[in-house]
């Protein structure tokens, strides 16, 4: 699969607050913009990939709303990692001739819906009757265990949020335009110990879309193709009691598959976009993706490694913690990776970036999908 399929169009719309658009309206506007970015029309799209927290059958909702009649559709839902999974599934479908131009799209009005959102998620009979906060409390259980096993501290977790804000200050689209300090994170209300409010991602609206096609077609389109070099998936739990090891996730497996397909190692990645729903989930994933050894994530982030100027150009748009988290972040990890590889990232541009990793995780670190992208030079 390496290098056979490329991203040819991207878009983001209303990444903080929807300007009068419904979730499917955000999907439609993002799709229109991404298709235009690719030099195509929506009617060229014959493969549709989407996931939603509000629509039970989002591919049908979107097809009807836009008049699209795809010959291939995939609405795999594995939480926030759905869209990384969609990229791999789309690449496989394109290679098999099941579709030529694949659209991955998402939209959410989670911020505008606040308090009114009715999730499609089922109740977990063995955990939710207790009145825990999903997904914060399971993530907090992971955090306490990581602290117990490796000596990770709340200050180190706070550094993750502080680094994210430093990146966000270089993103004109990011909502909060002031620096953040470790003390401010620690002084924010405790929600589910040891996680404070500012250990948690933003609650925003937003839509995004991505267009993929085979490499030979991509070279005829206006934007420089961004090639899919590697892909891997893995998944193992829905309930936190079913997570085999609270401090090591299946991201180890999804990343290994993606690195092997790409022929790259973590040291070869120029910029990474890793799902940061919570400070702790990012810390665990940095370890599992091989950017730092297991248990050493705390000192790593406290050293400034993931802040601008550090050793890893991570979540350069500010991520879910300081840019945008509309229910599911996965697609925004990919759009930022593509923006960096196109050299379109403005003040936050990583110099001469040729490889980028996007890692999506779903629910409470239960689902994982890793995508490695590269420019022509990385082929």
């Amino acid at each position, binding site marked *: 699969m390496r290098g056979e399929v490329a991203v040819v169009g991207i878009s983001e719309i209303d990444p903080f607050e929807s300007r009068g658009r419904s979730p499917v309206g955000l999907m439609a506007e993002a799709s229109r913009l991404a298709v235009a970015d690719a030099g195509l029309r929506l009617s060229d799209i014959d493969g549709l990939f989407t996931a939603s927290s509000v629509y039970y059958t989002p591919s049908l909702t979107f097809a009807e709303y836009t008049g699209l009649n795809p010959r291939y559709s995939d609405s795999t839902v594995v939480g926030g990692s759905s869209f990384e999974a969609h990229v791999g599934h789309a690449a496989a479908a394109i290679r098999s001739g099941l579709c030529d131009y694949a659209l991955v799209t998402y939209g959410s009005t989670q911020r505008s819906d606040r308090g009114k959102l009715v999730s499609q998620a089922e109740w977990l009979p063995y955990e939710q009757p207790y009145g825990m906060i999903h997904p914060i409390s399971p993530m907090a259980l992971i955090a306490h265990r990581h602290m*117990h096993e490796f000596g990770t501290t709340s200050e180190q977790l706070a550094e993750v949020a502080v680094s994210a804000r430093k990146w966000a200050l270089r993103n004109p689209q990011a909502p909060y335009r002031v620096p953040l300090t470790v003390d401010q994170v620690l002084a924010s209300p405790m929600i*589910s110990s040891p996680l404070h409010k500012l250990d948690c991602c933003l609650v925003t609206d937003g839509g995004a879309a991505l267009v993929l096609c085979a490499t030979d077609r991509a070279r005829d389109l206006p934007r420089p193709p961004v090639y899919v070099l590697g892909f891997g998936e893995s998944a193992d739990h829905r309930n936190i009691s079913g997570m085999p090891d609270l401090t090591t996730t299946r991201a180890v497996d999804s990343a290994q598959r993606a690195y092997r397909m790409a022929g790259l190692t973590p040291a070869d990645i120029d910029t990474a976009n890793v799902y940061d729903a919570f400070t702790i989930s990012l810390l665990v994933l940095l370890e599992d993706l091989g950017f730092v050894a297991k248990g050493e994530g705390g000192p790593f982030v406290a050293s400034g490694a993931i802040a601008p100027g550090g050793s890893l150009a991570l979540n350069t748009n500010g991520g879910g913690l300081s840019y945008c988290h509309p229910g599911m972040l996965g697609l925004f990890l990919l759009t930022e990776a593509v923006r960096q590889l196109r050299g379109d990232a403005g003040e936050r541009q990583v110099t001469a970036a040729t490889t980028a990793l996007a890692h999506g995780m779903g629910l409470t670190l239960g689902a994982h999908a890793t995508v490695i992208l590269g420019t022509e030079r990385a082929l």
Partner: protein
Amino acid sequence: MTQRPTPVLRGEERAYFDRARERELVYQRCRTCDATQWYPRVVCIRCSGTDLELTAASGNGTIHSFTTLYRAGHPSRAADVPYTMVLVDLVEGVRVFGELVDVPPAAARIGLPVEVGFQDVTDDLTLPVFRPKGGAIDAR
């Protein structure tokens, strides 16, 4: 006051909560491969076998991890904050989710020995909870 969230129980899920009403915390053992699993399933997670025995656990274990909620996860629990959720490793070898009671937040810790208790939260729902072994810990 809003009522505690009550799950819609289907099939084998019902058996777990029926036994909880009888003051039993149950888990399954596979008679084919001897694997254990917490909540009842129709297949063994290790060998896919279907000869599974639903057994009452001793209820004894230690805290694997915990989190104290300072904001209620459901409106019915607003008056209860702060309250603590735990993962408990039972001596039978299964990991169970539940609530920790009779322990002030500052005394909750990984490794704390606990035993099971039961709370009738509605007329239809009894939940296993965990208490410190050796009696309640005072809030001081």
